[in-house]
């Protein structure tokens, strides 16, 4: 931020100089296109990204993350910390003080009762709340007055900023959702389609999976905002049509998440109607290596710890597979400026990012060949290596997606350069990421040797994410194939680090633990990170104020958007 703009905003905050366009609704309509159409506005019932982002036009949390990943107060004046006394010394409670004078879009005051109600709503029996994890560990909530919320945990909570923080956990109005608790939640169609909020816009028409129309909230706390009188959020189509509508034909002002080949995007941008914006979060495209044997001959014991993988249990093979991959080229072909090479499964925020594994940035085919030769894998007549009658032949599965199929083809070729034969398979995303117990093709069952997908974590705290590779998280028939530990990695040392992180409150120490865990996974080569994937969106040249945010909803600051005159 330049000195001038800082000064200007300071002046504006004092209300001395009215801005030229500082008038609510002066800029007409903003058209937004999401190629995946939102099916409701309530993030607690859906959990999907598209619903969460649509909901964020209306619903707001107490605090959220800005585009740098820093937590900013939203409906409160300050973020509670141990230092300012907002968080108890023993880490068992947090006290939020709501900003004064905030009202719902129906004009009624926003109070601590609404905040408490939101917790009750999400944790009610039989409601199937998608964000219940955010409210984990809360023993009770006290509301000593209308502006004070005291959240009591059932034990020390080193990172207390999950409940009521971020686009996943916004506040619902108690008066509106009071009859929608638990099993009744799905029946409240009107509430779920048009929730009342404190945010800049109010739903006027909601057509599920099609289009949402909103108008400026007359009771929004800043009288000069939002600059737009109405919002049209159109859903459906595909990333290409969405990109075209903003960058080439100018029909829309903002297009969400344009996952397209970099040269296609660059050519669209060259049409001159709009700009691409990008941001990075924690999303890492990675290859998971199966340490268990997926052979169909094993029946029920297939892909379980009972049978180690005949090839991939050899660390030399795993390391060679990683060394053969040319990550910079993958980034260039698949993501361009919206991707970065990463050698860590935990690439961000800055303090958690390890630098110990950066050797993977440069491919080393000769080194990989030498490593396999040393380990006793000798090339056969057809160029494929064998050892003790085992051929180095892998089944490589991933979900259907143009970039992933290009990656598969490239990696297959690089692996064939080191004498590894690869069979490729792509599976429809709805099957691959589903957890249908009868389907053999889910990413959790992992009936293949290696698989590729992307994952990240909400917010900025990696505790739950890193705990995903502890022994207890291994999917198996006993737990209906639930869990995030796809490689079936099981190490006592790792589990000890996970347990330690759950006890540690101090940020530096937590960062250190997370780095250690990351390095352990990386140096055992059970996860091969490929690309730190950014998000690319596009906005029209005439749209000002867009700050793309990967840590929260993309539409988090829509109140600040305006039309360039």
């Amino acid at each position, binding site marked *: 931020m330049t000195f001038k703009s800082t000064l200007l905003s300071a002046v504006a905050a004092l209300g001395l100089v009215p801005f030229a366009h500082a008038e609510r609704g002066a800029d007409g309509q903003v058209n937004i296109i999401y190629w995946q159409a939102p099916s409701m506005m309530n993030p607690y019932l859906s959990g999907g990204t598209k619903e969460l982002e649509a909901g964020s036009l209306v619903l707001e949390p107490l605090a959220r993350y800005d585009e740098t990943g820093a937590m900013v107060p939203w409906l409160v004046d300050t973020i509670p910390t141990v230092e300012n006394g907002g968080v108890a010394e023993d880490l068992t409670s947090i006290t939020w003080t709501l900003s004064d004078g905030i009202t719902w879009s129906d004009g009624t005051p926003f109070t601590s009762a609404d905040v408490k109600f939101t917790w009750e709503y999400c944790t009610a029996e039989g409601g199937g709340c998608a964000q219940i994890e955010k409210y984990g560990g809360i023993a009770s909530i006290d509301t000593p007055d209308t502006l004070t919320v005291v959240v009591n945990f059932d034990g020390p909570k080193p990172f207390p900023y999950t409940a009521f923080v971020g686009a996943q956990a916004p506040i619902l109005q108690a008066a509106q959702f009071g009859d929608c608790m638990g099993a009744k939640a799905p029946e409240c169609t009107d509430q779920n389609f048009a929730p009342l909020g404190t945010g800049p816009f109010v739903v006027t028409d909601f057509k599920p999976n099609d289009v949402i129309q909103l108008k400026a909230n007359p009771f929004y706390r800043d009288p000069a905002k939002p600059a737009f009188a109405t919002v049209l959020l159109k859903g459906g189509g595909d990333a*290409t049509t969405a990109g075209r509508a903003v960058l080439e034909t100018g029909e829309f002002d903002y297009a969400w998440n344009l996952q*397209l*080949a970099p*040269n*296609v995007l660059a*050519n669209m941008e060259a049409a001159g109607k709009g700009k691409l914006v990008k941001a990075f979060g924690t999303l890492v495209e990675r290859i998971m290596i199966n340490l268990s044997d997926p052979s*169909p001959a094993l029946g029920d014991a297939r892909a379980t710890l009972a049978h180690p993988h005949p090839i991939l249990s050899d660390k030399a093979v795993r390391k060679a597979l990683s060394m053969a991959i040319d990550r910079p*080229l993958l980034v260039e*072909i698949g993501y361009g400026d919206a991707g970065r090479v990463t050698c860590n499964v935990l690439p961000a925020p800055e303090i958690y990012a390890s630098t110990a594994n950066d050797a993977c940035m440069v491919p080393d085919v000769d080194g990989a060949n030498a490593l396999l030769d040393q380990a006793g894998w000798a090339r056969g007549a057809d160029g494929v290596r064998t050892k003790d009658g085992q051929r180095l032949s892998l089944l490589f599965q991933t*979900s*259907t997606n*143009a970039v992933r*199929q*290009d990656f*598969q*083809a*490239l990696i*297959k*070729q690089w692996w064939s350069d080191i004498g590894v034969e690869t*069979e*490729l*398979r*792509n*599976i*429809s995303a709805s*099957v*691959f990421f589903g957890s249908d117990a*009868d*389907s*053999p*093709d889910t990413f959790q069952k992992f009936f293949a040797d290696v698989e590729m997908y992307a994952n990240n974590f909400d917010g900025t705290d990696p505790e739950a994410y890193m705990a995903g590779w502890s022994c207890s998280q291994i999917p198996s028939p006993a737990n209906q194939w639930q869990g995030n530990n796809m490689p079936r990695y099981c190490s006592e040392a790792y589990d000890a680090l996970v347990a330690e992180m759950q006890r540690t409150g101090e940020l530096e120490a937590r960062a250190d633990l997370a780095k250690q865990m990351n390095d352990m996974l990386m140096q055992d080569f059970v996860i091969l990170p490929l690309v730190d994937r950014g998000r690319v969106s596009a906005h029209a040249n005439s749209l000002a104020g867009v700050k793309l945010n990967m840590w929260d909803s993309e539409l988090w600051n829509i109140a600040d958007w305006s039309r360039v005159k």
Partner: protein
Amino acid sequence: MTEPALTSTPRSQWRDVWDQFKRHRGAMVGAGLFLLIIATVFLGPYLWTIDPTYIDIRARDQGPGWAHPLGTDQLGRDTLARMMAGGRTSIAVGLTAMLLALGVGGFIGVIAGFFRRLDGPLMRLTDLFLSLPLLPLLLVMVMLFREQLSQSFGPETGIFILIVCAIGLTSWMPTARIVRSDVLALKEREFILAARSVGTTNAGLITRHILPNVLSPIMVSATLGIANAIITESALSFLGLGFPPDFPTWGRLLNDATVYIQDYPERVFWPGLAISLTVLSANYMGDGLRDALDPRARSK
């Protein structure tokens, strides 16, 4: 086709058909074109020996040139080699799936139209198949049979059988309906009644009198069916229900290239042209065959 030892007539019926077919200009052009396409995709790889899956990343996104007559794709794979490899699969899938759909549809249509007692059940079966949502049906077929088929026939043949069956078994219904409607009308015509009155058996009636007369809708179904099968295959592969992702087919090449339509229009042009030419040639051959088999047209 001729059986000189068994037939004492100087000219067999098939010879007549062939003579008529030869005189049909459109049919000959179609047949020539079809043979040319077949020869290119099946014999071409012996002359143009680049591996269609070989990635030469430095040569990506190239236009037509000496090293790559049709250019390269976004990973630097040779488009000509991919077109030939894709053609083999697409033509094989297109023809076999079409024949399967035609066989099932034609059989059910004729039987339903001819035997009144079977009409009801068979048409209700057709209704059922028309009503089933395609995508879940295919998902179920893949889930149930992929593993078994690839174990018994190897991964590629196994998936080929699966795809051909999936397309064939989900596209026979229109043919069945159309053939049935024609048979219903035909069966009341004078020549059928005449044939029946001289004691022709049902089997004889169907093969000698009914089938030749429902040939034209069958021919139309066949030509449309090839196009349909080639396109459906690409949709299946795209959904991850078909061939492995690095296995080129014309439909897939067309699908992959569509996103580059503005940047590299020639990439969509080649597979589009190949599919269109194949379907057109099949259409003209069908026209010729229909004319050649129609005794009235023959006598003209």
